[in-house]
């Protein structure tokens, strides 16, 4: 099982270590550093590294490497999932997961890691349970603690851990009972030069924020549940009911959680919200290149496309770019050669464009590669797959909760080749 954990920052310093079994010397990380040095980009460090006696499994989050050390055959996904859980927990507790935040809360971090694993076996990883065991630090609580001498360690047995619904603690009370659901969809797509779609798929999630008293039993039904044929559920969802009736029936955890994530891959269901007209050319022998980009809305069902951000990694030979945006602002970083254009909202009447020239290194040959354009965008109040919630009902409790459902579409890895 998981032996040890090292946290390594971007400059290659180990700033925290935790051992769940015998102590493994820090020098084991040298193999990691070697791999880190070989990698051209920080994210190219291979996630599984073997050393003579150990295996190092790492994830990179928030510019921190979480390096787990294992000694025997352990499923790597198990380790990676656990590391993600550690990151999520830190973020949940400290608001951000940065080196500074971890150092500022090192004792809580240590206590958390101790509760999350026992002898390398996961112990308590649900945020609800952890928060009962170790109260998250808040300014107020720290002050109270210093004055009264009380601690942020819970004295109670985490009740949820033993009940049939381990994800929910008992005795939850709210004065305002509310349940909010966000349907968020991300479009991953590759569009080729000519504008036709090579691949397109939707990664959707339904995130919930449920603050309800007692033990509510919720059911959520969809107008078009057939869209969801590839889904992953939170453990609280009753799978049998879904199989039989296509209804989500569950006792929710308290607070924020991801109810389900889904994947729509059949291409005819994936609408492409924007199109890009581009003309990026370099001429042989000339020290200038043309850059011409126009964006327009495509299949948006009448909704506005907002927060559009275009970025492109220009070839290494480009020295500078002299461009003229019709709206928004652009920046070009001559070191990383990254061009970003913050477009904002697309007005269908007046399409945004970015035109101008790029200066190339004099005498250098024309770049071999074509830049790829990355697009980020947001569309409010619409799930691009067309998924719609039909109704939300609550059983088991008497009060009337406040219910809300929000839809949002974003671009995930949306790439246009030129």
């Amino acid at each position, binding site marked *: *099982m998981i032996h040890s954990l090292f946290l390594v920052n971007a400059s290659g310093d*180990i*700033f*925290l*270590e935790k051992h*769940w*079994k*015998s102590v493994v010397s820090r020098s084991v990380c040298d193999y990691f550093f070697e791999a880190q040095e070989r*990698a051209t*980009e920080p994210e*190219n460090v291979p*996630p*599984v590294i073997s050393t003579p*006696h150990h*295996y190092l*499994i790492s*994830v990179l989050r928030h510019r921190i490497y979480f390096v787990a050390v294992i000694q*025997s*055959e*352990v*499923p790597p*996904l*198990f380790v*990676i*999932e656990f590391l*993600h859980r550690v990151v999520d927990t830190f973020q949940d507790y400290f608001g951000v997961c940065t080196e500074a935040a971890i*150092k*500022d*809360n*090192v*004792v809580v971090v*240590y*206590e958390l890691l101790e509760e999350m694993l*026992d*002898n390398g*076996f996961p112990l308590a*990883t*649900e945020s609800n349970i952890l928060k009962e065991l170790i109260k998250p630090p808040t300014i107020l609580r*720290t*002050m109270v603690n210093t004055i009264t001498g009380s*601690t*942020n*360690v*819970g004295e109670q047995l985490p009740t949820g*851990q*033993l009940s049939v619904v*381990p994800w929910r603690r008992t005795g939850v009370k709210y004065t305002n009972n509310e349940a909010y659901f966000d349907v968020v969809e991300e479009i*991953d797509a590759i569009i080729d030069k000519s504008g036709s779609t090579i691949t397109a798929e939707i990664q959707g999630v339904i995130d919930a924020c449920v603050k309800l008293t007692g033990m509510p039993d919720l059911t959520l039904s969809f107008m078009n549940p057939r869209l969801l*044929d*590839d889904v992953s*559920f939170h*453990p609280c969802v009753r799978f049998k009911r879904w*199989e039989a009736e296509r209804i989500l029936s569950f006792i929710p955890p308290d607070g924020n959680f991801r109810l389900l*994530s889904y994947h729509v*891959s059949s291409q005819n269901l994936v609408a492409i919200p924007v199109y890009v007209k581009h003309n990026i050319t370099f001429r042989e022998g000339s020290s200038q290149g043309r850059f011409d980009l126009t964006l327009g809305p495509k299949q948006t069902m009448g909704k506005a496309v907002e927060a559009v951000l275009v970025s492109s990694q220009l*070839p290494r030979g480009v020295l500078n770019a002299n461009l003229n945006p019709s709206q928004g602002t652009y920046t070009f970083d001559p070191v990383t050669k990254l061009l970003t254009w913050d477009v904002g909202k697309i007005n269908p009447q007046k399409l945004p464009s970015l035109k101008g020239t790029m200066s190339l290194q004099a005498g250098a040959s024309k770049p*071999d*590669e074509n830049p790829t354009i990355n697009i980020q965008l947001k569309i409010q109040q619409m799930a691009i797959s067309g998924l719609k919630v039909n109704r939300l009902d609550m059983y088991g409790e008497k009060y009337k909760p406040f219910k809300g459902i929000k839809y949002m579409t974003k671009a995930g*890895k949306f790439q246009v*080749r030129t």
Partner: protein
Amino acid sequence: MQEWANQLCENRQFGSKMTDSKYFTTTKKGEIFELKAELNSDKKEKKKEAVKKVIASMTVGKDVSALFPDVVNCMQTDNLELKKLVYLYLMNYAKSQPDMAIMAVNTFVKDCEDPNPLIRALAVRTMGCIRVDKITEYLCEPLRKCLKDEDPYVRKTAAVCVAKLHDINAQLVEDQGFLDTLKDLISDSNPMVVANAVAALSEIAESHPNSNLLDLNPQTINKLLTALNECTEWGQIFILDCLANYTPRDDRESQSICERVTPRLSHANSAVVLSAVKVLMKFMEMLPKDLDYYGTLLKKLAPPLVTLLSAEPELQYVALRNINLIVQRRPEILKHEMKVFFVKYNDPIYVKLEKLDIMIRLASQANIAQVLAELKEYATEVDVDFVRKAVRAIGRCAIKVEQSAERCVSTLLDLIQTKVNYVVQEAIVVIKDIFRKYPNKYESVIATLCENLDSLDEPEARAAMIWIVGEYAERIDNADELLESFLEGFHDESTQVQLQLLTAIVKLFLKKPTETQELVQQVLSLATQDSDNPDLRDRGYIYWRLLSTDPVAAKEVVLAEKPLISEETDLIEPTLLEELICHIGTLASVYHKPPSAFVEGSRGVQHKRLPATANSGESVESPDASSAAAVADAPPAVIPSQGDLLGDLLNLDLTPTTTGPTPAVSTGIQMGAMDLLGGGLDSLLGGDLGGSPAMGAGFGAPPAAMPASFAAPVSGGGLDDLFDLGGGVGLPMGAYSPPKTVWVPAMKAKGLEISGTFARRAGVIQMEMTLSNKAMSVMTDFAIQFNRNSFGLAPAGPLQVLIPLSPNQSIEVTLPLNTVGPVMKMDPLSNLQVAVKNNIDVFYFSCQYPISILFVEDGKMERQVFLATWKDIPNENESQFQIKDCHLSSDAASSKLQGSNIFTIAKRTVDGQDMLYQSMKLSNGIWVLAELRVQAGNPNYTVSLKCRALEVSQCVFQSYEAVLKN
């Protein structure tokens, strides 16, 4: 570190008193002293702050062990946080202060009785983490109580504690019966307890490969499946991994397990999903393919696998490595999902390369156009490694999908036109492979390739280009000029290029002998006289000799038709693939190696096999049988590298049995030096040796050694067959022959598995082998040779494998042996090094024969001679052995031994103890005398052996034991 401390100091100046970073600032001198005072303070608050500081120092790797007694003093407190902090400290430092740690024991024991289950669990959990022997003694009683605690939270913690304790002191855990208690917990009412018990047992089982700790039967499986639905995600992983080790009794049970596992495919935790995929992939093997459910299951597997690819890159990587295995085993699952493997330009490189590999595996006629368009796109990306791999992928597509070959070639030509150096080089390497797959089809492009000759600077590309020039010399007008230009810097080239250049020029010479005589002489002298590389030198000599003795034969050898290559070379060997499918989701699946090959501490991992398909004729060994075979005896070692043996084996001819009078010609010439030697050596040596200078030296071994190895007379080849017949009918010959063991596993011999044993039947020593073809191509041209060995064992005839061995076929071969081969003392004495050759390669392995096969039939000594000899042999040559647990009477033992040519000469009975005097004679004339003492009612025999050659005693004794016990 210093910088960081400074930064923290600054933080403090800004008054960030709320955070823990203040604990790091006390790095100055006297800090320990200060902390000590604070720890002993009366104020609770100050104490706690001090402990926090200590923990903070410990976290960043500072040594605060000196504070041990002071910290332990803080342990007796009602404050839970303080208690936890002290526990944290204890776990870290108890090892270095074992005597002090004892002080903590009482508190632990008391805490284990606390009314609050949280404290009970915490205490038992912490005690298990303290790796001090003295403490573990005290742990047993509290642990026993906690395992039966009324609170499931405590039970589940205690279950893990058993695993911890086992890690520290395995014997103690077994003695105290904790393993049985743990097994009982599998039937616990609480799913979390079940999951943890399974996890603990699985971990313990790893160090006990043969124990039946996780004895899976339908009842336990049922319990596990019930717990599976209710436990946490991590528990589900443990249970699924455990389920995967079970072999269902029939297809119905298999289906019902699959049905209960499928819902896990929709879990949000990717590790759960992958473990579920493993169980399904394994149990699916047992389902009949015509079953409706089989099809349903196949359809259900695709979406979760695709979903894994939308996760974080690290998860994607592991998922992709596993998908790579899955598409090889069951391509139908993902055949319509090609697009999800298309590469996004900002994927990390390790994800890109894996996706590319899977794209090629999924490439088919239906989607090849799309794949090629993508690959061409990738070939213009920035990352050099990725671009190279993409170009290579185009070549692999051409080889895999025949219909696309033309398109691929034109794509490659387009890429060559880009003149990007590494793209051109990579393209040339793959075009060479395409030529080998589709000869005489695309040679029109050679002209284009030749244009780029000068830009090639990588050895592999140069070698490929030279090969092309040599192979198609007759179509390239200036082939001689081109090759000559390479020859100028011959000594600066890498070996790969040198070897290719040598071969290419010889080919050129054979095709255009008139103009190139000078060139060929130049290269031969460069290779043989000026080179230190033995491979190059030997290949040079062989060509030289071939050309000088028989140019016609040379032509037939060098310009022989080459076997076509196929895409199968990229596939994982089926046996390995089967094993890896059983290990989906593990490190093994990431490295594509069996766990036994690399995981430290997995002593004697069982090789997992897929279960046999229901109602199909395939004979797959059951896992039990294979593990039994692995345990039996010391497994024979496969000699890993050819290098050290080469010297000895060069003496041996590896003539295939099927070859006619001109073996050199009929053997397809291959590129390895070894093959050349094996194929052509004997005929070459038979010829005129005067052709070139320094001839003998080139071969390292003096020719005088030759006759011995050739001398194996084919005496009684026919006779053996007759005896064989007798044996086949089932005549009880009496001689002991050990069961067959696997000498070479298929993985180590490119799909050829050899198992075998030795026997002596009617005075003839026989090597009985089973050759199994586990590869995907037909095997032919089998031949065998032995290295020199202690008793001069040598094959008395060729290996009789007359029909080609098709895939998945096995053949039984009996090889008669004689003992007139060359002798060299081996260690151990009965070690035999064997080389087996087939059309694919030469494989080396070593095995041990029971020395009893060497006991000859006339080994019965005269009584008088026996007495005289016994006295004559000095006492220091006597060795005594014990044979335990043998329940034969002395007469039965005597007759049994006689079957193996161990003859009883006299028997004496003293005080109810039978003494048997026995003699045997080895094939090389060594006599061994023995005294066997058998006490009625005592299962332990004593053997005393006397022999002038003391070193055989150990082997003889082993034979006694083997014969008597079987």
